[in-house]
């Protein structure tokens, strides 16, 4: 017999203060609200309660409320996180600070304009199958696609883009693709059946060289994708093969290039 789950004896609630950004990119204030917190609540529940009770026009994006769609990205006590996956019990006592993502223009309150991400995605060359079998499908081995499947767990919450200092602090949106799209390109480049080569794009247009691998993207990823170690660094190494390694160039010259 397993032990029963820990259950609070009463459904007592406890007031907590939330300091929430109300405003847009030009001006606004951090406004305090009170929410009644019961056991098991997450930050998004509190935001919804504030919306239903105190501020019907409080703008917030959300969909699945289970950490699967990546809509409710925000900065809770200064850390980029999903509101639906941040349990109240996990936060230290005191007021809870909720701000919109910083790397994108604020539209209103907790909602930011993330359209830029979709524009970057459009510029990435799509998947191009190498060898299609007669029955119209591909043959691939599970141990070859394990790598790729890690990257495909991405839910596009853009928390990695938000925390990446190249975008967040240095506003290189025009020149740099950001961690999300290195993950996407890694999923294509390491695909055993992809015939496309994106190394030139990675170096010249996505400017992977801007990444100084300080790993904040990995730290904030709610899907626990090893963005830096498994996606960005291996891509950097592939760019090195093509552009910075005279030995590899010599081998290519003698034996011909594979891709």
């Amino acid at each position, binding site marked *: 017999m397993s032990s029963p789950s820990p259950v609070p004896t009463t459904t007592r609630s406890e007031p907590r203060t939330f300091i929430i950004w109300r405003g847009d990119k030009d001006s606004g204030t*951090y406004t305090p609200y009170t929410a009644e917190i019961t056991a098991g609540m997450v930050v998004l529940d509190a935001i919804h309660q504030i919306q239903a009770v105190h501020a019907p026009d409080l703008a917030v994006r959300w969909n699945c409320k289970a950490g699967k769609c990546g809509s409710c990205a925000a900065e809770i006590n200064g850390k980029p996180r999903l509101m639906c996956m941040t349990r109240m019990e996990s936060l230290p006592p005191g007021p809870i600070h909720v701000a919109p993502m910083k790397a994108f223009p604020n539209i209103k309150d907790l909602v930011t304009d993330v359209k830029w991400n979709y524009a970057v995605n459009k510029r990435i060359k799509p998947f191009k199958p190498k060898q299609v079998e007669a029955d119209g499908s591909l043959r691939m081995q599970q141990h*070859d696609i394990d790598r790729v499947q890690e990257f495909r767990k991405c839910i596009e919450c853009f928390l990695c883009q938000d925390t990446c200092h190249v975008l967040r602090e240095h506003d290189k949106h025009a020149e740099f693709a950001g961690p999300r799209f290195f993950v996407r390109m890694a999923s294509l480049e390491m695909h055993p059946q992809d015939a496309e080569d994106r190394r030139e794009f990675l170096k010249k247009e996505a400017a992977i060289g801007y990444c100084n691998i300080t*790993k*904040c993207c990995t730290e904030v990823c709610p899907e626990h994708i090893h963005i830096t170690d498994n996606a960005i660094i*291996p891509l950097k*190494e592939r760019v*090195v093969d093509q552009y910075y390694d005279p030995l590899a160039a010599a081998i290519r010259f003698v034996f011909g290039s594979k891709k």
Partner: protein
Amino acid sequence: MSYAPGTVLPGPHAKGLGATARSDAWWAAPLGFFLLLAGFVVYSTWAAFQGAHYWVPGTNYISPFYSPELWGTSPHAWFGAAPPFWPLAILQYSPALLILGIPAGFRLTCYYYRKVYYRAFWADPTACAVGEPRNDYWGENFLPLILWNAHRFVLYLAIIFTCILGYDALKSFIFTTKDGGHAIGIGIGTVILTLNTVLLMGYTLGCHSFRHLVGGRCDSFGAKGSTTHSLWSGVTWLNERHPFFAMISLCWVAASDVYVRVLSISGWHDHLILFRF
């Protein structure tokens, strides 16, 4: 700094060094790494300039800072006392100065160390979602940091060096007896130097570039259990522990030098002879 309720801002976030709404001790880790790495640099520089007490008479112990000793005055030297090209007039010769650039370069260009020192020394950024002191930024896209792309070449040399240290570790089982004969034995130094090699191996072979070269560069590893797949999986296991091996091997290498130095100065006898030959 956190924003108090009612703070009227031109936008939701402030900019500048340390600007953040984080209330946790985000500065603790970079500060810790700053002290650790700065301490190591100060100590290793001091040790490298000593040019003495890096080996222990009667044993085959040699400080890893000084190996391979290409030119030098100890029995471990490969060639002569000092390299003919060394500008003795300007700089006193120490064997460490000649070779320390390789392991230092390996760690300097290491993907993991880059994270650590960009954060701890360069505040670029100090911690996640924390403001930075400078607005301009070149990353590793331009000189000088674009040179770090040569990490794999330093890796090749580092692998050779690790092998040499492995040879040193094997040698450290051999001692000279008072009568001038040889003996196999084991000392605290033997254990320290052997462990040093193991940790360095763990660090060197877990390198991101190595992981790429042994298989990461392929889109398909071939059949399950193929050499490529097994090698890549093994290196991946080490790579996942790269931060651990990076820091522990750094500390251990310094500790090895300290031990050899102390032994060399004090003349303590730290070993047990097992049998003579």
